[in-house]
């Protein structure tokens, strides 16, 4: 009885101490606080787990290498399970903790929080690369380090049109046919569809009926059968990897015979594992190097993955770790610049940090990043890979700004 009492008293005391300390943890030393919102249990957790691990490892790397001009980054990392109401509460918690910037996650939370973020002037570096977030007039504090979804989709369609369509027997006899597979209910999946359709129209494609495929889909036969009538030459997939793999498998099994183009979140090392033979020849956009490729800083990515998450075997790590490093290192650079200028306010980080980046090289195989006060598209180059003979190899790079300078400057910003 005595032991039981002691034990419960100990637990209660521990809880009270933790609670008091939790409430008082807002007062900090010489640290810069950064929040990170991740999805490890929700709709996008298939790619979110690896990203979350990458964020924590990258921040360790920054801190181990002098931090932000000598100040350490204190990372508050939360899982919100892709639940938007919860994202809002967590965002307010970050504000309360006085985080100077937030590493966000999906299109759902990022677009939902965009008005609030703009009002509070807190830079929000998301893993959502929606083209809607690139217009500073509308979303001044939303930033990211990647090729935006619209540029990715335009790049994928363009490269397929340049490289693959001329090899088809029907080339020159008819228009190429394209159809889009995505979850219509998801802003993430559907955010680049308008741009993709515009690009396809511009290049003279015939566009087939959209197929709504859930992010959780494990069977897509009805959608593939619906597409069989249209006989597409190529499909554009904008879902995450599990759903894309299911679509590829069914497409292969039912003999659809179309090529496949995949946006970055559906194109990672797990795709061949999940889709098997159906992944052969799949083309995708990857703004960063795949995990383990020989590019600057990859050795550090591997070293920190081993050091901080030894329980996760390296062969299970994916490109999303590299993505996370790009976001974290990009933010760290902006913080360093703003700190040097003596202004770590939200506006300072934006104007004296991000918007001073011109052709900034992060490493990790990502194209140079440029932000201006009027254009937050970080890069105009879409790096297009092809999965062939068991490995991802660079198929082409297309610079949309060089190829369509007028449209890039005047028409394509913000969608």
């Amino acid at each position, binding site marked *: 009885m005595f032991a039981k009492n002691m034990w419960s008293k100990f637990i209660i005391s521990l809880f009270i101490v933790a609670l008091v300390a939790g409430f008082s943890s807002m007062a900090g030393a010489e640290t810069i606080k950064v929040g990170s919102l991740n999805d*490890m249990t929700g709709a996008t957790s298939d790619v979110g787990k690896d990203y979350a691990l990458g964020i*924590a490892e990258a921040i360790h790397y920054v801190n181990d290498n002098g931090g932000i001009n000598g100040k350490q980054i204190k990372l508050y990392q939360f899982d919100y399970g892709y639940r938007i109401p919860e994202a809002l509460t967590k965002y307010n918690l970050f504000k309360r903790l006085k985080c100077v910037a937030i590493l966000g996650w999906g299109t759902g939370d990022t*677009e939902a929080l965009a008005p609030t973020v703009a009002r509070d002037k807190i830079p929000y570096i998301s893993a959502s690369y929606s083209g809607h977030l690139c217009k500073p007039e509308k979303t001044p504090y939303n930033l990211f380090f990647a090729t935006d979804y619209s540029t990715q989709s335009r790049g994928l369609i363009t490269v397929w049109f340049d490289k693959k369509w001329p090899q088809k027997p029907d080339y020159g006899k008819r228009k190429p046919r394209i159809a889009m597979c995505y979850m219509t209910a998801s*802003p993430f999946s559907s955010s680049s569809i308008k741009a993709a359709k515009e690009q396809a129209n511009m290049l003279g494609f015939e566009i087939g009926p959209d197929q709504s495929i859930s992010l959780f889909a494990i069977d897509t036969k009805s959608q593939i059968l619906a597409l069989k009538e249209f006989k597409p030459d190529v499909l554009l997939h904008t879902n995450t990897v599990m759903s894309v793999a299911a679509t590829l498998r069914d497409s292969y099994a039912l003999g659809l015979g179309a090529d496949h183009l995949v946006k970055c979140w559906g194109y990672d090392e797990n795709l061949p594992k999940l889709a098997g033979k159906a992944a052969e020849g799949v083309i995708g956009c990857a703004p960063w190097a795949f995990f383990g490729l020989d590019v600057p800083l990859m050795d550090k990515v591997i070293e920190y993955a081993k050091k901080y998450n030894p329980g996760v075997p390296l062969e299970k790590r994916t490109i999303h770790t590299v993505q996370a490093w790009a976001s974290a290192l990009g933010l760290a650079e902006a913080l360093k610049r703003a700190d040097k200028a003596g202004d770590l306010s939200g506006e300072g980080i934006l104007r004296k940090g991000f918007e001073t980046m011109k052709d900034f090289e992060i490493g990790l195989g990502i194209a140079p990043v440029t932000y201006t006060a009027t254009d937050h598209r970080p890069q105009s180059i879409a790096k297009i890979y092809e999965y062939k003979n068991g490995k991802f190899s660079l198929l082409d790079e297309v610079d949309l700004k060089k190829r369509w300078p007028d449209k890039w400057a005047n028409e394509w910003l913000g969608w």
Partner: protein
Amino acid sequence: MSTIWLPCGVYHQNYVQDHAWWQTKFIKGKMILLFIILFVVIPLVADSYWLSVCNQVGYTVLGALGVQLLIGFCGQITLGHAAFIAVGAYTSTLLILEFPWPKFMMDFGIAYPFSILIAAFTAGIWSLLFGLPSARVKGFYLILTTMAAQFITVDFIITQYVSQIGGRGQAFSLPPGTIKVGPWVIDSDLKVYFMMLVLVILCVIIMVNLLRSRVGRAWVAIRDNDISAEVMGINVVKYKLLAFFVAGFIGGIAGAFWISNIAAISPEHFPWFWSLWLVGVILIGGVGSIHGTIFGSIFMVVVMEVLQLAIMPLADIYPKLLMDFLFIKEAAFGLAICLFMIFEPNGLAYRWWQIKNYFNLWPFSY
């Protein structure tokens, strides 16, 4: 003394006394104290984070009230309530964004409150439509028809058609300054908090008043035994549909309130899981109790946040603890429902009632 404490028994002599809101001076005092805490103390003490937590509780209460009415008071099991919240949110948003309001209505901040009312009616009528099968089916079959409401409304109509209105893409964002109530632009957590309080209090008053009227008694009769209710002359179909309408109406208010909190919506804000969550709220709070709805909402939102804060200092030693908390939270949610079902099937409201009675009857509380 007796007018203050209601000591060991109830001495009401007529129904008016029996159904009075505040039956003793002491209860009146407690209520005034509660109002002071809600309207003065919390706004003065709470920072933006805690206000947003309160707003989250308010949103959950508004959402769960309709579920409580259907399940707890009318016996109609629903698993599609998020659909009616979505209808309210989208109606209000579209009215604000697309409807050509006369200038004076925008200037005087009447447009948004008006849109809440229209949203509530639209959601009520939409809910009533999905309540029609309740005339023929009940139990598990009704669960399936209400789930259909979720899929037809959110996944099909809202996603495929409503979201396309105005060509904005999936996410609707409300420009700053458009959500205005009278002279106040709702642009801070504090203002959202006050609006939430007013809406929650209004909805609770509506619910409580309905429940102590003929309508409420009919609902409870249907819940307890629909055949007996019909034998007693209650028009079962009419009252079931009325329950669906009122539940949808309050759900519509919840949805219209939600847009003031976040100023942006997409179909992802109203997943089927949210309908299930609201059922969890009333199970934990107590089925068939308005108090239960509020306690359940507080439990589901505040307790989890407090736990999260409590583990934050430990995260310095175990950094992954913060990330892993959601796993714990999900598990805690499941475990809490199991434990409540086993040990406290009447929910937190019953526990509250016991505590209250203990003090009311003290020192003879045996």
